[in-house]
């Protein structure tokens, strides 16, 4: 990667940071509901990052890896999140030339729906308050793992997710108040597994690495710093496995 490439990546990262930061400021000033604040920061940051890296995709994009843009939008529709998580693997992987088969797709769908419910339940309790911090670390490690898996575009998408979660985590720390993790739980349940599935099936991300990165937000604890420390071993292992 040349210096010019690095600068381009940084510029693209600045977009989600600015957009998500604006929403975070708005949340600080106006919104009492931290759940909505969390959901909005991650969504806006991701959409801006995706726009910077790949543009705005068509409503039905030819390239299925662009569906993550739509997932970020739909993650705001809280009542539909579990159904969407169940459908997400099928929506992404039906485009594969060699389909993983109905049994694998059904299994992945059930696992994603279960993971979503589990994550949400944890986010509702105080023990999961700092889930955005763990998710930010997982997404940042995911970006690095996707570079190793030879997909810079997917890596930039993961970086946008990391910026979104990171901004909200920063918001939680600077405001000295917990909560809001429940708003970001659908994003952690949709965007991280979606990018990991894309990395594994469309690029060269090993399944072990993909699984570790997707599951990392589960280790979230009340405190952001403790969550980051807890999330470090699985993400480091995932990176090592990704080569």
């Amino acid at each position, binding site marked *: 990667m*040349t210096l*010019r*490439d690095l600068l381009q990546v940084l510029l693209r990262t600045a977009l989600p940071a600015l957009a998500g930061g604006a929403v975070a400021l708005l949340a600080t000033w106006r919104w009492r509901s931290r759940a909505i604040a969390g959901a909005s920061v991650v969504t806006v940051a991701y959409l801006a990052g995706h726009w910077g890296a*790949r*543009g705005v995709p068509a409503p039905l994009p*030819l*390239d*299925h*890896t662009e569906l993550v843009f739509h997932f970020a939008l739909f993650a705001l529709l809280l009542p539909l999140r579990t159904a969407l998580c169940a459908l997400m693997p099928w929506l992404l992987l039906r*485009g*594969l*030339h*060699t389909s993983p088969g109905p049994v694998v797709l059904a299994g992945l769908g059930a696992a994603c729906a279960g993971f979503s419910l589990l994550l949400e339940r944890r986010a509702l309790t105080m023990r999961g308050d700092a889930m955005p911090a763990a998710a930010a670390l997982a997404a940042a490690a995911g970006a690095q793992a996707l570079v190793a*898996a*030879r*997909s*810079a*575009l*997917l890596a930039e998408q993961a970086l946008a997710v990391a910026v979104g979660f990171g901004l909200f985590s920063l918001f939680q720390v600077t405001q000295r108040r917990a909560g809001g993790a429940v708003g970001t739980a659908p994003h952690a349940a949709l965007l991280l597994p979606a990018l990991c599935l*894309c990395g594994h*099936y*469309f*690029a*060269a991300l090993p399944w072990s690495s993909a699984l570790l990165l997707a599951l990392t937000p589960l280790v979230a604890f009340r405190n952001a710093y403790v969550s980051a420390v807890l999330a470090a071993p699985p993400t480091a292992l995932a990176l090592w496995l990704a080569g």
Partner: protein
Amino acid sequence: MRKGLTLASAALVLAVVALVDTPSRSAPVAGDVTVDPVHSSVLFRIQHNGAAMFYGRFNRVAGSISVVEGGTGALDLTVDVDSVDTANEGRDKHLKSPDFFNAEQFPEITFQSEALRHLGGSKYEAKGTFSMHGVEKEITVAIEHTGTGKNRQGAPVMGFETAFTVKRSDYGMNFMQGPIGDEVRIIVSIEGALAAK
């Protein structure tokens, strides 16, 4: 002096015989040719950093060319994206990823033409559908009949070659525009056995 004239006459006769003996170069060839993947090549070239032309290849190609009497015909070529080869394993993986070809979703590059026509001499033209990265576009390519010969089994074989340019951005492949050029020159050289009638 006399010896010199004799040699010149012999050379002239040989040249006339050689010209008369190559009707395939002027008249349209006819027959169904199945692509021999072992003796066919698909190359591509793209500019890197605005400087050198970088060449890569696809190692698996299949298809057929069919020319009827009168010089019209059809052409069907399929290239396996997974066989991309740039002499660097990491780069090949990157080319197969969603950044470029997205080989898992779009495993083939195809060109199908039902409008192949003879232009004269060894020149042909094919108007057809070029499909890459899930996008189809109508293009016209110039084809040259490069020769006719026999393989080791004594069966007749024919060769064709074409070179044409596409813009990768037209096919939704926009990653790293700038450092990597937009225009891709594709060179296809096909050899195939003529089907027995």
